[in-house]
């Protein structure tokens, strides 16, 4: 039982302890905060995440998920910085973020039950971050607060571009 609990906690913390995941979730949450249909964005993310986990369960081979995730974070960051978010593009990037995050989170557990617990924890942790950060950012209505969020978006884009270059160089 303690093994399952530990696996669940590991999964919950995964999006917060993996910088590339945190960066993408933060960018997506900032974008989500400015979307009129936040629930749809969350639903798309959750479905894509589930699809990604299903691929892991079906033993899909190693994918360039980390690189895709960083490219997605860069695009999301640019959109937040530019305060430009066409609905379809936002949904597409949301789906990519969900699937790539899942594929980049293969559980390390040996036991099947613990692996499932880790995946469940990751899903709950990622969605919780999205909801909480988007709710907070959604209340940022003053001009300087909106500006601060756009600057944060540019920082996310810049960080993701740099790391993406490192990844491409290494590959």
């Amino acid at each position: 039982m303690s093994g399952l609990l530990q696996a669940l906690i590991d999964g919950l913390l995964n999006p917060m302890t993996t910088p590339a995941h945190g960066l993408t979730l933060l960018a997506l949450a900032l974008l989500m905060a400015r979307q009129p249909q936040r629930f749809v964005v969350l639903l798309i993310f959750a479905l894509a995440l589930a699809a990604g986990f299903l691929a892991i369960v079906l033993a899909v081979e190693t994918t360039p998920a980390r690189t895709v995730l960083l490219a997605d974070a860069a695009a999301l960051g640019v959109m937040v910085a530019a305060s430009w978010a066409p609905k379809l593009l936002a949904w597409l990037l949301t789906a990519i973020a969900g699937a790539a995050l899942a594929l980049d989170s293969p559980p390390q557990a040996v036991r099947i039950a613990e692996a499932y617990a880790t995946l469940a924890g990751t899903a709950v942790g990622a969605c919780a971050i999205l909801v909480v950060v988007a709710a907070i950012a959604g209340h940022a209505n003053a001009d300087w607060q909106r500006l601060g969020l756009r600057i944060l978006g540019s920082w996310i884009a810049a960080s993701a571009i740099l790391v993406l270059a490192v990844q491409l160089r290494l590959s």
Partner: protein
Amino acid sequence: MRDHEHSNIAGALGVALIAALVGASQTASAHIVDGSATGGFMGGFAHPLFGLDHVVAMVAVGLWGAFLGPPAIWLLPITFPMVMATGGAIAILGVPVPGVEIGIALSAIVLGGMIALAARPPIAIAALIVGAFAIFHGHAHGAELPPGTDAVAFSVGFVMATGLLHLAGIAFGLLTRWPAGRIGVRVVGVGIVLVGTAFLSKAI
């Protein structure tokens, strides 16, 4: 009389800022010469703070943005990190850019000069100038990124420190709301030109 006092305070602030920057900077260039950047968030965060030429240029971006007012006050600090990251990516991918050190020194001279002269070009020109120099700054730092899993934390720290230097410049630049503050900010611009000139003489 009050304006005179404000002018003195602003001038003293400017001199103090330059002195603090000189004191804080132990190395004389934007990049770590032996390429031994420390990894992790703190390594990335500290990295831009230990190159005086980089620091003064970043502060100058914020100062000039504040001087120009909206929309430059937010457009320049938003544009700079993304273009700088592109310059960094160019370096990481091994594409050479000639005259990086000269470009960095020139950035301090030009941006400081713009502040000192209270120049107000159209926003597109201002963004172009800042963007062009951002490539040089990004290129100088790009090669310092540690490979592997540490790269994300390092990059986040690096970009945050750069952004905070912009914000420091903007905060100081808000003094331009007062006549005496405008003088103080322009004095800082002169200081930035002097620092840039010193680096240019080393780079040539």
